[in-house]
C-alpha cells in the first residue's frame, strides 16, 4: 500500500515568508530548517519569485487613481442624512407633514360622509323575488350535465312571484302591432 505524504509542515510558512513578513527569529529558524529540507528550500526560493512577479504585475494598477469628489457621496446620501443629524431641522418637516395628513383625512371623511344617503333605502318586501333561491333549496346533483337538467326541471313556485307591473306594457299589450305571419293563402305568389 502506498500513501501520499502531506509534505513538510513548514512549507506553507516558507511560501508565505515574503507575504507574512515573520519576525527575525522566526525567519532565521525557517532558513535553518530550509537548509535541511528540500521542500521548504524550494518553497522559499519560488515563494520569493512569485512575490516579485505578483508585485510587479500589480504595480501599474496600484498607481491607478480616481478623481471622484466627495460631493457625489453627498448627492448619493441626499439631504435626508444631513437633516437626520439635527433633530431641530426635522421638526418643521414633521409638523408640515402632519398638517398635510390631517387635511387629507378630513377631506376624505367629508367626501365619504356626504355621499351616503340613508333615505334611499327601500323595504325589502317590495323588491321582486327571484325564483332561483327557492329552486336551490333542493339538493342539486353533482355532475355538470345533471345539474343543468335538474335546474331546468325544477319548477319554481310561480304563485308566490309578484310580477312587477311596470315591466309590462300598459294593459298587458304591446304598444306596437305584432307581425302576423300569414300562412297558406291558397294561391301561388306567382
Amino acid at each position, binding site marked *: 500500500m502506498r500513501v501520499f505524504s502531506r509534505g513538510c509542515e513548514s512549507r506553507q510558512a516558507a511560501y508565505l515568508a515574503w507575504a507574512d513578513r515573520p519576525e527575525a527569529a522566526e525567519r532565521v529558524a525557517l532558513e535553518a530548517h530550509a537548509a535541511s529540507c528540500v521542500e521548504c528550500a524550494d518553497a522559499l526560493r519560488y515563494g520569493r519569485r512569485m512575490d516579485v512577479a505578483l508585485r510587479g504585475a500589480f504595480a501599474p*494598477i496600484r498607481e491607478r487613481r*480616481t478623481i471622484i469628489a466627495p460631493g457625489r457621496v453627498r448627492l448619493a446620501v441626499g439631504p435626508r442624512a444631513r437633516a437626520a443629524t439635527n433633530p431641530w431641522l426635522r421638526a418643521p418637516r414633521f409638523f408640515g407633514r402632519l398638517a398635510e395628513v390631517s387635511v387629507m383625512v378630513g377631506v376624505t371623511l367629508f367626501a365619504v360622509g356626504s355621499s351616503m344617503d340613508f333615505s334611499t333605502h327601500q323595504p325589502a318586501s317590495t323588491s321582486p323575488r327571484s325564483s332561483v333561491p327557492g329552486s336551490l333549496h333542493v339538493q342539486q346533483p353533482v355532475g355538470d350535465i345533471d345539474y343543468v337538467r335538474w335546474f331546468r326541471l325544477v319548477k319554481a313556485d310561480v304563485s308566490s312571484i309578484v310580477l312587477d307591473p311596470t315591466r309590462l306594457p300598459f294593459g298587458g299589450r304591446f304598444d306596437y302591432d305584432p307581425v302576423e305571419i300569414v300562412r297558406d293563402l291558397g294561391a301561388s305568389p306567382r
Partner: protein
Amino acid sequence: MKTQRDPAAGDTRTDHDLVYAARDGDTIAFDALFYRYRDGIFRLGLAITKDPSAAEEIVVDTFARAHRALARLEPDDSLRPWLYRVAVNLSYNRRPRKGLILSSLDEAVDEALANEDGSPSHVAEQAELRRLVLGAVDELGPKHRLVVVLHYMNGLNLTEIAEVVDCPVGTVKSRLHYALRRLRTHLAAHPELGIEPSRPIMATELRVPKQITAAVPIEGE
C-alpha cells in the same frame, strides 16, 4: 501619473477622530476619510468588477453606507477593514451591466503601461509578463483571488485581510498558500518567468508497524 492634490489630504487626524468629527457634522472630516481611502476602494472594485465605472459607483456606495453608519461606527484604529469589507460585498453583489464585455484584469494596466519609460521592446516584454501573471490570477477562484488582490494590490497585511474577509488569519494564510501554489503551476508553463513547477509529492511505502512481541495480559489469568 500626476496625483491630484486633495484639499483634505493633509489631515493628520486618525480615523477614529475623523469618524467622531464627521458624526458631529464636520464635512471636512468626512472628506478627509474619503480622500484617504477612495483610491484603494476604487482599485479593489476595479480588480473584482473589471469595470472602471462600476468601481467608481462602488466607491460612492461604500462611502454613502459609511455616512449612514457614522452613528454606529466605532473604529479602533483604522476604518480601512470596514470600508474594504463593504466594498468587497458591493463588488460581488453588483451584476455586470448588460452588453458590457468585461476585460481581463490585465487590460486595466494598459493605461499605466503607456506612460512607462524604456524602450518599446522592453515595455512590451514587461507588459507580456504582467499579462501572464494577471491572467493566471484571473483563473483563481474568487476567495483565493480576493486574498491575492488585497495583499499584492491593496497592500493589506494578512491580519487586515482576515478582518476584511471576516475569517481567521490561519484561513487567510491557507488561501494565500493555495493561491501561490496554483499560480506557480500556471506560470511554470512560461519559462520566461523563471518559475519551475513545484516538486511532486512522492508516494511513500506505508510503514508496517512492528509486531508487538511483548506479552499481553489476558483477562481472567
